């Protein structure tokens, strides 16, 4: 997955949203679906804490877009980030874990999920393609050098359940 990334520092107001490739799902053919989850795997949390405002099929959504269904808003997830490292050099480096019984490193990427049943069903009546836009709203006072492309994740998927 890629985001519309640039590498310069950015203020909170002009952070670039993450825009996914289209996810394809013929939801109108699935009559017995009772719940639909939108899953975010491998979410990076090495940066500041942020609210990820999630919009469907609204790739132009930004921090000023109203969070209403008409704009494709389906909810927000929240990341408790590590932000600035206050330790010495190397303190927060993710080390290779050679011991399978030990817990994972604290910077191991996160899993987040939103239940988006009604919105996906509604939008899915008109299309089988879903573009997911994540608009970051960074926690105030995080004292972190924010990069405008800091929303990073490994995979995103829509999972309907019967």
């Amino acid at each position: 997955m890629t985001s519309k990334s640039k590498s310069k520092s950015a203020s909170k107001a002009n952070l670039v949203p993450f825009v996914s490739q289209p996810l394809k799902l013929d939801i109108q053919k699935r009559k017995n679906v009772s719940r639909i989850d939108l899953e975010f795997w491998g979410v990076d949390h090495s940066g500041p804490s942020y609210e990820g405002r999630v919009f469907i099929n609204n790739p132009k959504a930004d921090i000023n877009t109203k969070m209403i269904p008409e704009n494709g808003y389906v909810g927000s997830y929240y990341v408790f980030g590590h932000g600035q490292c206050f330790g010495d050099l190397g303190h927060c480096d993710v080390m290779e874990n050679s011991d399978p019984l030990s817990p994972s490193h604290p910077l191991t990427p996160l899993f987040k999920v939103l239940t988006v049943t009604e919105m996906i069903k509604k939008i899915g009546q008109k299309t089988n393609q879903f573009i997911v836009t994540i608009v970051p709203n960074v926690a105030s006072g995080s004292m972190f050098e924010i990069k405008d492309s800091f929303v990073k994740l490994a995979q995103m998927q829509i999972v309907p359940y019967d």
Partner: protein
Amino acid sequence: MTTYRVNIEAIQEDQLAKLRSAYLAHQQIDYADDRGFSHIAGHHGFPGNYCWHHQRDFRVFLRARLFLPWHRAYLYHFEKKLQIISGIPNIGIPWWDWTSELSKSKGIPIAFSAEKIERGKANPLFSTRFPLGRRFLDPATGIRHAETWRGDEAEGLDLIQRLIPSRKELEEQIITRTDYGDFSDYLEDIHDVIHGAVGGGMSNVPSAAFDPIFWSHHAMIDRIWYKWQLKHGYDRGLENMMNLSLAPSGLIVRDTIRIAELGYEYADSLASVSG
């Protein structure tokens, strides 16, 4: 005697004064003393990195959700040391009910948001100092620490109003969840929002536990788990994790199952006099 953790919104004036006195005494202990506030706060993120959050790593065998038991052990350890250092044997960590109408209209309770208390003294529930790595040493002053800080109150209130459930939603949609993993993940998501809503150092994992409000935020999380246990069973979902370590508290998961055995209870408020 049982330690009662009370609602910070309902705490009596004399209890609040005791609480401030206890936190101040605890915060004045040097970082090198492992009984002190800042040393224990350092277990969470910087420099200890012991805390468990969103454990979902498929590269390792252990996929246990230890978020709730780890933090219960952590608070227990902190509270015991708070009691010893302050000389107030039953002082308990108050809980901050961020689902309350007051928190949803005003945000952080005044006990934690007031920078000063009587006679202009600094409020030990608002801020304290935390140590930094050697690379932050100011050679001119020899200082290698900072004060904890908060984010913008209005932005925090907006997050609480939009993303934190009401008390009714908490009871009906969260505590009713029957699967431990589902419940734990959902509660942890709510927990994440509060860290961001307080903002500042609380919004960074490494510095979060140095903010005095951290302990009351997690007392609320622990209280919700306790309410869930009362409804669904004490050890539900933890059957295969009982012997896992909750370092550095010295406890294992089994030790954290029943809060009565840890010697504390959640109450709304408390009135007491000496006999």
